[in-house]
Structures are given as C-alpha cells and as structure tokens.
C-alpha cells in the first residue's frame, strides 16, 4: 500500500500487509466504511471496533482505533457490553455471514431487538473463508462448498430482512458493486442512533469462486451485478423469479428509543444519576 492512499492515516501501518486474498471484497468495504465515516463527519478517535472470528473480523485489526477482536459469533455480546459501559463511544462491529448468522445468530436478533446503538457491517461472502470454503447460512441453494460437495440443500437466510424484522431501526443490503449506495448506507447507519445493520454481499474468489466456477474476481463481480435486483423492482417480481437474486436497498429506516439511553433515562428519572463512565479507575464512587 502506498502512503498516497487518502485512508492510510486511519490504518495501523505496522500491521500491513494484510492477510486478505487477492480479489477479496474486504478492502473495498474498508474503503467504503472510511469514506462513509468521513461523509458522516464522525470523529475517528471516538470509534471503537468490535469483531468476531472470520476473514471480515480481521478488519478492525488494521484500523488505528481501539479494537476488540473477540470469540466466534459473540462480537455483538462484547459490543453490547462495551457500548453499555461507555455509551459515548461510537461502536462499529465488523462481522461475517458465518459469524453473525450462524454461531452468533441469537446475539444478532437480540441486539436488533434491543435497538442498541451499534453499527454492524456484515460482510456476506456466502461461505466460510477462514476455514477453507464450507457452506454458511447464507450460501445460495445449490451452491458448492467443501461441506456441500453435492450442492447446498439448505435455504439461505435473508439477513437484512431478518434483522429488520427483529427490530433494528436501520437495515440495508448492498453489494461490493454498488459502492456509492454502500457508502451512503454505512453513513446512514453510523448516523442512526439505534441498531444499524448493513449487509454487504461480497465476492470470495478464493473459496466461493473456486467451488462455484467463478474463479476470477471479475467473474464473481459480474455475477454479483447480474444477480442484483433493486428492492422496488423486487416487489413487483414473482417469488420464483427472485430465487438466487440479491435484493438490494433499505429494509428498515425508522426511529425507536435506544437501549443505553433507556438505561440512563431510568437512572436519571428515578434516582437522578447519569450512567458513570470509566468508573473502574475511581477508588471511591
């Protein structure tokens, strides 16, 4: 990476080069995130990142901010504690389809239900990359993985819809092909004072591509683009014709009381107390 990249100042330069494969969408998404963060006029110094386990969960390790790289599937639990302990932090969670929809599925719906002010970027590559190409809960029916050698027979989750149904106040899905829409969605998510979920469908040429006759990043990108259907158009399509399609757009954009605000409101209204921050460093409280 050259020092000329405008986002280099946000990176931990002593950690580069990164571990992502050539053609991976993670770099595009990091770049989209940083662009969105600037557009949202966020203070990068105030951002704390949390992630679980998987390729996408390695992203915070390259960002020069406080970052908590946690256990598989549990990023949202850790993030819930972090945000509750210090609600002044802007907490961003990077997760993947296996991390947040499989092992962490329960935490995902509960974090959405609580409408806790977290911005979750779910990098959905439809496969387990870190462990070498096993199918995930979002793998399309019929797709191949090392654990689905005869084609995946399971129905995939529609994550953005699932999270909207669970109570998130912002939920959207885009792909790595619609960069500007993705940037706007992340910006809206960062600004939304509640649970924000941005699903990014992305390419994994190394594993998904190789197993599914889409070996080059270009082949994967073309496929993503061909399969994309905008939400408005999708609403006029028959269910049968939507099979295998990626419906993009916003699935929730609303306002509800936020979780940590509710906690502080009760303390304030009933006992005249604000939620303490950094109290561990005090000898007497």
């Amino acid at each position: 990476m050259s020092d000329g990249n405008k986002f280099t100042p946000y990176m931990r330069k002593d950690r580069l080069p990164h571990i992502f494969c050539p053609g991976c969408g993670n770099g595009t998404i990091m770049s989209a995130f940083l662009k969105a963060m600037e557009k949202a006029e966020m203070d990068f110094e105030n951002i704390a990142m949390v992630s679980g386990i998987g390729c996408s969960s390695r992203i915070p390790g390259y960002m020069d901010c406080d970052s908590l790289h946690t256990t598989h599937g549990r990023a949202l639990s850790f993030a819930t504690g972090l945000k509750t302990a210090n609600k002044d932090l802007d907490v961003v969670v990077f997760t993947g389809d296996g991390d947040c929809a499989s092992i962490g599925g329960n935490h995902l719906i509960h974090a959405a239900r609580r409408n806790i002010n977290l911005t979750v970027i779910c990098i959905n590559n439809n496969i387990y990359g870190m462990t070498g190409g096993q199918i995930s809960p979002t793998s399309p029916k019929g797709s191949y993985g090392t654990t689905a050698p005869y084609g995946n027979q399971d129905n995939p989750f529609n994550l953005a819809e699932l999270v909207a149904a669970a109570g998130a106040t912002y939920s959207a899905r885009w792909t790595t092909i619609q960069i500007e829409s993705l940037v706007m969605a992340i910006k809206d998510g960062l600004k939304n004072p509640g649970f924000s979920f941005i699903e990014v469908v992305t390419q994994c040429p190394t594993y998904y591509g190789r197993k599914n006759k889409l070996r080059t990043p270009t082949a994967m990108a073309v496929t993503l683009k061909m399969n994309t259907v905008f939400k408005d158009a999708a609403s006029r399509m028959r269910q049968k014709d939507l099979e295998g399609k990626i419906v993009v757009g916003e699935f929730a954009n609303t306002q509800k009381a936020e979780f940590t605000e509710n906690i502080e409101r009760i303390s304030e209204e009933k006992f005249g107390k604000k939620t303490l921050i950094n109290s561990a460093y005090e000898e007497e409280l």
Partner: protein
Amino acid sequence: MSEELFIQGNEACAKGAIRAGCRFFAGYPITPSTEVAETLARELPKVGGSFVQMEDEIASAGAIIGGSWGGTKSMTATSGPGLSLMQENIGYAFITETPIVVVDVQRGSPSTGQPTMAAQGDMMQARWGSHGDYEPIALSPSSVQEFFDFTVKAFNLAEEYRVPVFVMADEVVGHMREKIVIDDDIEIVPRKMPESKEDFLPFKNIENGTNPMPSFGQGFNIHVTGLTHDERGYPDTNNPDTHDALVQRLCDKVLNNTDKICSVKSKYCDDADTIIISYGAPVRSVIEAARKARAEGNKVGYIKLDTPWPFPEKQVLDLAADASNIVVVEMNLGQMYYEVNRVLRRDANVHLVGKIGGLMPTPDEILSKINKLGGK
C-alpha cells in the same frame, strides 16, 4: 459508622459488587444465583450503573468483557450450566487479561441436575473449564458475610492482576440469611490507567506480569485479540516464542504472587492427628465437627480454603504435614480431594467425605468418618 443487615447470601454478593465499584452486570436467570441479578437490577440504576439481562450466558460473559474494556468494573453471576456456557469467553478474558468477576452459585449437577439444591461440583470447571493453560483465582465463601467480603476481594484481585476471578459459592451460602456488617472503610483497588500513550505496550512482558490497562476511547488505540499476540497486542500466531512468552507471563503473574493471593483459615492444627480440609458451606459443619471432636478429647483440626484456586499449597503443606490423617470435606465425589492428594503426595492417608444429593454434610457425618480412621 458501619451498617448491619440481615440478608441473603446472594443479596450480600450484589451489595459487595456495588461496594467494590461494579457498575455493570450482565447475566441470564438461573437458579440458585438469580437473586444476585435481581438485586443488581434494582440497585445498579441507583448508583449510575447498568444492568443488562442478556440472551444467554455466552452473551453475558462476552458483555462483561466488553464492559470491562469500556472502563467499568463488570460482573456476571450464574450456576453450573451457565458457567459451562461461559467458558470460551472466560478463556478469552484470560488471554486478553480482562478483569471480570464471575460468581457461580453451585447446584447439583451434572447437566440441569438439582437447580434448588447445593453442591460444589464446579470446582474443576473453575480450574480447567476453558481450553489451554491459565491460572484462575477462585474464592469460596462460607457465610453471608464472606459472600460480601469475597466479592469485594474478587474485584480487587481482578484489578490487581488483570484476570477473571471466580466467586465459587453454593446454594447454601447463596440462599441463607445471616447478619452482615458492612464497614465504611473497605479497601478498593481501582484500575490503573497507563501513564503515557507514547510507546505504550499494552501486553508488555514486564517483570511482575501485570500491565496497566487503558479503556477504550482514551486514545491508546489498542488492539485486543484472543489470538496469541505480541506486546503490542497484534496477532502473532505462528511464532512459538511469542506464545510461550505470553502464556508463561499470564500464568506467572498469578503463580509468582500466591503468597499474596492464597488465603486459608485454620484452627487446632498444631497438635492434630486428623486435619479436615474444606471450603464453602461445608466448612461450617467441619468447624462444629472439629469442636465436638476436641470436646471428646480427639485431636482434630481444620483448614478452610478461602481460595481454592490457586490452591494454597504452601499453607496446606505447612499446616498438614504432621497429621496422620487428612479428611477432605466437599459437596462432590472428589474434586479438591485430588488436589490435596497431589500436594501432600500421600494417597493412603487422605480421605474424602464427598456428599452429593443437595444437602451439606452434617457435623455428625464428618465425625463418624473421623472416628472410623483411628489415630496414631
């Protein structure tokens, strides 16, 4: 001015947590620990703290680790099944050196077992429950007062050594009511913020092992990971030396301080033929049994383990070396019993009163075992 209360053990634990500076609790309802959560749900909002009922115990453990990095002393409370679920994240807390307090009010087990009955079947789960090498600290209260005191102590030790600390209570101590006295003057160990951001290494291989801990949002921009990491906190998973240095330091910072961490209480040990070793609620029966034995002219003493982990090897060796018989009393079929055997290295004379079924052993049950042993 001190305060006197007649309260349940679980309530005393919650009050101890607040006194120690705990301002974040995340938990999931489970008998017989639930009153800890219920009390904190009521009390934390009064002192600017936060209570969260999580979706399960895995999430509870994750949340308190997140809360701790957020700069708040954090705790959860559970029982055996919940502790099993928490174990992966507890291991994460060890490798990331996150101070947390985990309270386990033990019940009959394995599995769902006896939710409303007492046991001490989780002692080895506290010691070895997560994967890999680490050195846990565990405290076992025998009274409502100790449940308060040991919860405060657990927070202090967690901060002092940047480790998870277990409070291994049991249903008897959790549910009974007794008088406790809360002094005004209680030592509280606050967290140490690093002095400078310049060249700060959050996981430095320093002499005493324990680094100061910044919280998130203070500009230290640290990376915290469960992967084997170097002194900067950066993953370095394929370098044997990095792993060796990290895990060795994590263990040493506890093992090199056992003089300060380990605690026992003992009585009548000097001339004792038989020494009873116990912890938690059964200690109360042990004390009564020892007193009765002495009244009958039998030389019986006892050692109470305040800290089952790290096992107080030195203290037990010093006190029990000359006794003909050792009797370990616990509410399981032998857990600390094997640890006592390991330390004293004389299997033949270490005996077990291992009571399961949900009731604590009675003084008479202990006495009848002692009377069968025969003295010198």
